[in-house]
């Protein structure tokens, strides 16, 4: 993540990279509308995802494609709240617990459940962890996870040229923003009308109903837009050389 923020990390295809650095410079200008924890979380998530796309070193949380959301939120919130390392580790277990429930009762695979299973799961994990960092209750953690996941239900997996880059990198940053907002809502005492377990079940059922062209096969969605197809042609031709 540090790498992605401090230098422009370009992917091998050249489709992504450098945006985390761009956002960091913009934040410095003081003109940002969501300056603070949200912008930091977005920036760190972007940086981690860019490093992932460049075959750099990351931790899958829960997957490599969604590896930006959780570290982005944990570090941004943890720094702001001045949490200890021990508190951060404990929050990481909290996130892991939510991910464990989602993975065993639904899915965390984009090929099986679409992007809602990857960024959706990561956002639920991150929202729950941030609530703990802010001193919220386990119940509030579950509400935050439910609110974050509900927002991403139905999200399809439609990567351009089959790469974990477009739209994956930016979806990590948007997932991070949603997680921080969901955590704040839960901390304010707002509850999810649909309980967390039922949201997870709904996510799984939606995933099984998604046609395979929208589950990591690049046969529909953004992948088959005119620009998506043009990029696919360019990248595949470049590879053939």
């Amino acid at each position, binding site marked *: 993540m540090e790498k992605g923020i401090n230098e422009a990390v370009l992917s091998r295809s050249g489709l992504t990279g450098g945006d985390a650095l761009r956002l960091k410079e913009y934040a410095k200008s003081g003109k940002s509308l969501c300056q603070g924890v949200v912008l930091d979380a977005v920036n760190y998530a972007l940086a981690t995802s860019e490093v992932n796309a460049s*075959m*750099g070193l*990351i931790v899958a949380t*829960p997957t*490599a494609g969604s590896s930006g959301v959780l570290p982005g939120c944990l570090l941004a919130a943890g720094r702001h709240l001045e949490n200890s390392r021990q508190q951060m580790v404990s929050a990481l277990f909290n996130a*892991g617990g939510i991910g464990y429930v989602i993975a065993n009762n639904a899915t*965390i695979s984009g*090929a099986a459940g679409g992007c809602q299973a990857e960024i959706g799961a990561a956002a639920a994990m991150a929202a729950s962890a941030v609530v703990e960092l802010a001193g919220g209750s386990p119940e509030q953690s579950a509400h935050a996870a439910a609110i974050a996941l509900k927002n991403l239900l139905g999200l399809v997996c439609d990567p351009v040229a089959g*790469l974990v880059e477009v739209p994956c990198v930016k979806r990590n940053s948007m997932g991070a923003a949603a997680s921080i907002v969901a955590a704040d809502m839960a901390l304010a005492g707002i509850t999810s009308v649909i309980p967390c377990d039922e949201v997870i079940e709904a996510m799984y059922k939606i995933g099984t109903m998604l046609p395979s062209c929208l589950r990591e096969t690049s046969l529909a969605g953004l992948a088959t837009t005119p620009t998506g197809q043009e990029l696919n042609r360019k990248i595949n031709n470049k590879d053939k050389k």
Partner: protein
Amino acid sequence: MRYNSIFDIIGPIMVGPSSSHTAGAARIGKTARDIFGRQPTNAEITLYGSFAQTYRGHGTDLALVGGILNLHADDEDMVNSFQLARDRGVEIIFKIVPEESDYHPNTARVRLSDSEGSLEAVGISLGGGKITMTEIEGFKISLSGDSPTLLVFHHDRYGAVARVAQALACKEINIGHMEVARKSRGDQALMVIETDQDLTNEIIEDVKQIDHVYSVALLTP
């Protein structure tokens, strides 16, 4: 339960971009190399299903070669593995089978060889960096590589399994999971033994001395 631990969710630590197509592929390559027991001079890699469709974009090819060169899934040298192979004199050939087949979507067949011998292994990537080796030298097996694993190639004769188990028992090694596969009755056979304790070279040497055993390989997670 498909996921048994929080560390299956937070993890693995790996080079990107895909846990199934990069980290899993690296582990398949490394497992094949560990069974082979040394660095090969030639590697022939066949990709099926989704591996065949998307291997370039996910660095599946780089990861398989990296694994064959003994790189772990978190080695940042992975991106340079083709150059490493050239530097170390390892010739790599890729074969792509994009057609629909009976194979699992993420399947790789790896054939390693040098002047002394060869080894063929098939592995599938299950997602999240988890793998199963489904075939070794034509033996149909199931091997996760998550525990220390002893592979004992032997002739299918009475007493072979008992003597190997006895050798492990003498060293206070407990067997967590075991399977035996054979080509046909009385023919070549393979024991796959997953243990709870780490295995030492001394134990390997003991097992090699047992009648009807002709080759032993050790996998450490």
